[in-house]
């Protein structure tokens, strides 16, 4: 799947560029994207180190066990393949909480940490498991209570009620998360 999408974007892009006369922009964009990617990741190193440190503490002290026990009624249904009390559940819980609270810079490292723990349960280290796909879909559709970035953007633009979009955002994200989980359950049966 990803091979087709990747090749398709490049092929269509370069051929379009030939006809639209945008080859100079394409040429510039190729190298700029690589630089941008590196910059994004350099900025990620700090939060990544910080949250991996905190999560190591949560693991060593068995704090993650405590969390997984509390959320077990939900997680056993969402992630039936993860053994109860597995540390992955605690990390997943913290990532989802960070997303709900609009703490994007912390959600990514916590999500990666959860992926690393899901990887320890994976029999084929290069192929995504069902649980990984479910987790990824929950993340891309993330239920959000406080869309922090957009609220600050609205208040900077002089909105009289920057937070009035909280209700609509909560509704839209709840719909997309439910749709994502349903899609996950159907697709896993037909996708090898």
């Amino acid at each position, binding site marked *: 799947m990803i091979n087709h999408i990747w090749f398709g974007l490049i092929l*269509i892009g370069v051929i379009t560029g030939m006809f639209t006369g945008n080859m100079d922009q394409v040429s510039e964009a190729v190298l700029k994207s690589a630089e941008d990617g590196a910059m994004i990741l350099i900025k990620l190193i700090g939060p990544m180190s910080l949250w991996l440190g905190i999560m190591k*503490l949560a693991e060593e002290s068995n704090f993650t066990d405590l969390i997984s026990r509390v959320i077990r009624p939900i997680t056993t249904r969402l992630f039936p393949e993860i053994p109860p009390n597995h540390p992955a559940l605690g990390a997943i819980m913290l990532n989802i909480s960070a997303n709900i609270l609009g703490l994007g810079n912390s959600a990514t490292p916590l999500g990666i940490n959860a992926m690393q723990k899901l990887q320890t349960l994976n029999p084929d280290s290069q192929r995504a498991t069902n649980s990984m796909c479910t987790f990824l879909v929950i993340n891309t559709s993330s239920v959000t209570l406080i869309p922090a970035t957009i609220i600050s953007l609205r208040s900077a633009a002089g909105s009289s009620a920057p937070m009035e979009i909280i209700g609509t955002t909560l509704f839209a994200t709840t719909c997309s998360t439910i749709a994502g989980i349903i899609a996950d359950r159907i697709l896993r049966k037909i996708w090898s």
Partner: protein
Amino acid sequence: MALYLKYLSEWAIPVIVLTIVAYAYFKQVKVYEVFTEGAVEGVTTVVKIIPYLIAMLMAISIFRASGALDILLNILQPVLQFFGIPKEIVPLGLVRPLSGTGSLGIVTELIQQYGPDSFIGRLASTLQGSTETTFYIVAVYFGAVGIRNTRYAIVAGLIADLVGFLAAIYITRMVF
């Protein structure tokens, strides 16, 4: 209500950090040493993501810079408008799953042009807050653990994005 949410957002990180560190401390964990032991993995984890993110960003940037995305937009806009989707919002819906900075730029423009409290301004805000950059998440989350076969994850993520897009339009119309 709004004020409580603001406090919740501001308090969350310090309270989570304190809770985990204090819990470990009282469980006799050597907190400082164990923290640094975990944090040392930060750099290697991020380094593993580099090839995946560069691959993804390169393909997306070629698609955008060549004008292919604009052509796709010109085709989609009249079709979607026929189904009652405001044409101003279509570029945002299309760019959102591909590029986080790109979509943030579009939202900023829409808010400036139409005003934050206009219908388009509110719709753009709801959309930006309610969907994620699916391609970035796939590259970063799967890349960090070396997953190459992403199976159906992108398709399921895009289905969720589409439903979020339609739900945002529906609810913004209903509420405002």
